[in-house]
Each structure stands twice: as C-alpha cells, then as structure tokens.
C-alpha cells in the first residue's frame, strides 16, 4: 500500500452537481492517493455515473458547489481534453460509436495529443503499430477490430474491451471505470478485469464505479465507498462489498451521511 506522505492524487471536496437542473451529487467527499484502487458502489440513480462524468468534464453536468483537486490543481477548470492529457481517463459505460474514424487513427491522434502535452515526441505509424499490437494482447482484442471504425458494429463486450485497450495505450494516471462490468458475461468480465489488473501500477490510481459486487471479485479494490442519493454514506475495505452483496443497499439508504470526509487517508 502506498504511503500518503505526499499530497493525494485526487481530492474531491463537498462536490455538488446537477444535470438538467436536478441535483444529483449532494456533497461528495473522496480522496484518492497515488496507486490506490477505489470502488464506488451504489443503487441505481445514486449518482455514480454522474460522478464519473463530472470528473471527466462532460458538458451538461453543472457543478454547483465544492471543488476537485487533481495533482493539487483545479480539475474542474480544465477542458475535457486537458484532463485527458493530464492523465484522467474515463472508460465509458456506453462507449460511443464513431463511424468513419478507425480505432487506430483515433488512437494515434489521441495519443499524440497526450504526448505533445507531456513534452514527448509524437509516435509515427510504425511505433503506434507496435504499441497497439502489444496492448491489444492485454485485453485479447482482435487486431481486426483495431482497424475498424471506433466501436461501430462492436458487441457490448468488444466495446468494453476497446475501452480498456484505449486505456492501456493512453497510459493514464487516474482511470475512472464507469460500470465497465455491465452487459458482460463472465468470460468477457474475466478478460476485461485481467486487462485492468495488468494496468495496476504503484503510480496509477483507479476509481471503479459499479453496481454489482461481482466485478470486485476480479478487480479487488483497496477501498470501497457506497454512494447513496448523491453522498458517500459508507466507506470501508473489500469486506464491505460482501456485506452489500448480502444485505443490499436498503440498510444504508436510511443512515445519515458521515460527518467527515472519508477516503484513502481515513
């Protein structure tokens, strides 16, 4: 486990956010240290995906209060592409089809935008080919899919694998996985999870948003947080996941929010 002697990678403080005038997040507090994996669970409509999207900067999600510090800087002031270049990656629950743009062309542009931002030389087609070959193995994604238009005609499992493949190529510092397990059968889940596990490093942090405890059998988090009605109502270790599996969320929905921020340092 990483020591938290330096400042945390991500600090979410009293985050309130609305979508279309409805307040979804009502004061989220969460601290993520470098190299830690946090699971965020919660019932439908609790705000899990909203949290993921707010962190990635999706337009239409209005932050009404609170702040988010990433590497000590104001994350919410950054455009989505700047967040990505700074190392934030969102694996979408519903990856978007982009007809007419091949995966490899898309990745080349994304990766080189990231590399330029980090002061690294751009990769040419040959370098990229080598890199994508290597990373494609990680999630057992067919190289044929890499050449096809982004997500177009992909099965649900292929789309999710493609997300993790992109994550492997882009090498983020903070990966947010939004219900990456939804719609996956157990074999596909194993492949995706082993891809994610292979990307666990002491430098990389992850927030794994999920509705089901099942995923956490494969991606074992360091911390688990339960989001109910836009607030984190309970934090703990992986034992909490088992308790949730047994008891559901109802018993937590009635509990008041804890008074102090919880997270890696708690």
């Amino acid at each position, binding site marked *: 486990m990483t020591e938290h002697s330096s400042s945390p990678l991500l600090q979410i403080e009293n985050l309130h956010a609305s979508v279309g005038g409805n307040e979804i997040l009502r004061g989220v507090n969460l601290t993520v240290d470098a190299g830690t994996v946090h699971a965020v669970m919660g019932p439908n409509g609790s705000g899990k995906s909203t949290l993921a999207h707010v962190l990635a900067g999706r*337009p239409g999600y209005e932050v009404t209060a609170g702040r988010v510090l990433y590497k000590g800087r104001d994350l919410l002031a950054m455009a989505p*592409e700047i967040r990505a270049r700074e190392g934030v990656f969102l694996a*979408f629950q519903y990856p978007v089809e982009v007809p*007419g743009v091949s995966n490899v062309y898309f*990745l080349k*542009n*994304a990766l*080189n*935008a990231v590399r330029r931002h980090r002061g690294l030389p751009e990769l040419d087609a040959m370098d990229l080919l080598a890199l994508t070959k290597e990373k494609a193995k990680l999630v057992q994604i067919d190289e044929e899919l890499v050449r096809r238009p982004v997500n177009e005609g992909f099965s649900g499992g292929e789309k999710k694998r493609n997300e993790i493949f992109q994550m492997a190529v882009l090498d983020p510092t903070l990966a947010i996985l939004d219900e990456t397990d939804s719609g996956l059968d157990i074999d596909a889940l194993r492949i995706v999870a082993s891809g994610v596990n292979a990307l666990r490093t002491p430098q990389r942090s992850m927030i794994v948003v999920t509705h089901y405890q099942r995923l956490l059998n494969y991606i074992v988090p360091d911390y688990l947080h339960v989001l109910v009605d836009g607030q984190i109502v309970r934090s703990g270790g992986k034992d909490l996941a088992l308790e949730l599996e047994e008891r559901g969320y109802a018993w937590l929905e009635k509990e008041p929010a804890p008074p102090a921020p919880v997270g890696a340092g708690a």
Partner: protein
Amino acid sequence: MPSPVLSADTDLAAAFADLRRRTGGYPAWLGGLRERAFARFQELGFPTSADESWKHTNVAPIARIPWEPVPSDPDAARPLPVSVRRGDAAGVQLGFSNGRWSRALSSAPADFAGIDVLPIADVLRDHPEWLEPHFGRHAAWEKNPFTAWNTALAEDGAFIRVSRGAASGPIHLLFLSEGTGAPTVAHPRNLILLESGAQATVVETYVGEGTTLTNAVTEISVGDGAFLDHAKIQRESPDAFHVQSIAVTSQRSSQFTSSSASFGGSIARTDIGVLFAGEGGDCTLNGLFVGEGSALLDTHTTVDHATPHCTSRQVYKGILDGRSRGVFHGTVLVRKDAQKTDAIQSNKNLLLSRDALVHSTPALEIFADDVKCKHGSTIGQLDAAALFYLRSRGIGEQEARALLTWAFASDVVARFKPQIVREEVERALSTRLPGRPR
C-alpha cells in the same frame, strides 16, 4: 415577349446578334436551334422563386449583374492562379479560360486510338454534322432558362468521342474563370459521346477568381454496354456564380457514375439528369457539397427510369457552415413500363453552425408496380456524445469537430472515382477543416 428582367439587358440581345453575325457559317439546324433557344430564354427569363425547381435558390443576384463575355485572347500570358493538371502518358487535358480553349491550359492533343478530344469550337467549325444528333437533344433547354441561354450563345467547350469498343485514359477538362476586371460570363458546352462498348473517364474541374458566372452544359450519351465515370469538382471563388446542367442519356446495359464535389461560390447550382433510354442500365450518383460563408450550394438530380431493369444509386452529402445554405432536390421517376426498377437515393446533411440551413427534398414518382425504391434524407449536427468521447481521450475540441466532419464526408468521398478526384476532394476538404488531426 421579353421578360422584365431581360428587357433591361440590351447587351444580351447584342451578344446574340454579334454571335449570329460572326457565325453565319453554321448549318441551318444549328442556326435554327440557337434562334429557338434564345427566344426561349427571353420568354422564360431568369427563374424566380415561383418556379418550383428554383424555389430555394434566388438567382436575382445573377440577373442584376451586367455579365460580359471575355473577348480577349485566352492565351494572353499571365501567371496562372491554379496549378494546372497536365495530361500525362495516361491522360489528356483540355483547358478553357473564361469559356475558350486555351493552349496554355491544355496538354498535347490526345493520340488515343479511336478517341477524339477536341475543343468543340473546332467541331462546330469543321464538322458540325458530328454534333447534330446530340447537340441540344439531351439537355432540356426548353425548360431550363440557363440551358437555353447556353444553347443560344455557347461557342466552346469539350468534344469527346470514344468510338465503339475503345477505352480512354482519364480526360481532364479544366475550366478557369477569371473575373478580375468586369464580371465575366462563360458558357462552356461539352459533349461526351460513348459509342457502344466504349469506356472513358472524364473529370471536369471548375476553378477561378473574382466575380464570374459559369453557365455550363454537359451533354452525355452513354451507348449500349458503355462505361463512363464522370466527375465534377467545383471550387471557384466565393464571388463566383456557377450553374451547370449535366444531361445523360444512358443506353441499354450501360454504366454511368458521377462523382461530384462542390466547394462554393456565391451560388453554385448543378442539375444532373439521367435518362434510362435502354433496359438494364446502371447509374451511380455520388456527391458532396461543402458550404461556408454565405455560399448557396444547390444540387438537383433527376433519374428517369423510362425502361425496365435499370438500377440507380444516389448518395449526396452536404456540410454547411457559417451562413451557407444547401439545397438538395432529387427526383426518381419510374415510368409505367419501367418494371424491376431498383432505385435508392440518400441525402444526409450536417449543419456546423446555427445559421446554416439546408433544404432537402427527395421525391419518388412511381408509376410501375414491380419496383424496389427507397429514399431517405437526414439533417443533423455533430453528435455531442461522440464529440465528448473524442475530447475525453485528449483530442482538442476543434480537432474533434474536424475529425467528425471528415468522418461524415468520408464514406461518400471514398466512393468517388477516379482516385485523382478522391485525392483532390480530400485535399480541398482538409483545407476547409483546419483543425483536422493528421
């Protein structure tokens, strides 16, 4: 009775009188045709918004300008504003400056066996009998005033004849309009004849600068079992006006493809009409129009399934930015006896700004009962979800927009033939999408 618009324009009548005087040597059929076309043009006048096929395209700006033909020598030495694509071993180019054949813009004469590529002025002078079965017989000058105007006054353009069973390399027609002085008008008139079993590729490119009006007519006859790939690239100046009618008669079991890209001008209108005059014909029309500023880009297509067992495929895409406007009107007419017709038409439009506008009117008129016809039309904006997806991977907003716009166009551009046209359209599109990632 002259229309009010034209009665003020005495120069026009003078131009016709001048042409008649200079060209007294024309055979009677041609003289008569010009007389009738000119009378018809005066009768119709410029179209107004009351005319259904010009409802969304107001040509009043064209009618207001006192257009003058360019009397000067088209070879007058002047640095060319465009790169000239010369013919090479595999191809030939005929170039026209303000509507007249220009040696400087042309490659060496074609020396393909069985193929004539000539300035039509030469054919009018030396072999008008070659023209008689076709000239003014494919294009609807009785209906379209611009076509009538051209038919009355056209003096030059390309004559292409591919004789029975012959196959040509690519034939490039370059039309350069320069309106750096007074507003100039040109009436290019092209005739492309493929005899039975012939094969050809013809590319028309329109470029220019200044205030110009290009009023072109291309008549095409594709003989039995012949193959023609026809392409048009129009990228004149933002002040240019461009009107062209392309009239195709397709004979039994022939194949015709059209690849058309329009990049602007003040008004750029293309009418393309295909008549299936023989059974088993096949036509494919692919088009892209890309507007910015206050350009108006108008495409009208008519595919006349007059005979059975013919197939037509149309894909047109429009990209409109700024205050530009697009018009697409596509008619598929299936006549009573045209059983087993298979026709598909699609028009998709992408609006990149709030002030851009497009009128899309697909129209099927079916009088036969055993046919397969489909059409569709969409108007949309860039997909916000896709835009965010790209940005969430580090691609900047402008680049993401350019990438998605490029992707929108790419499937129709990929269909363009020949490859040189595809590449040129991709280059032109790239300059319109400055943020496009590499």
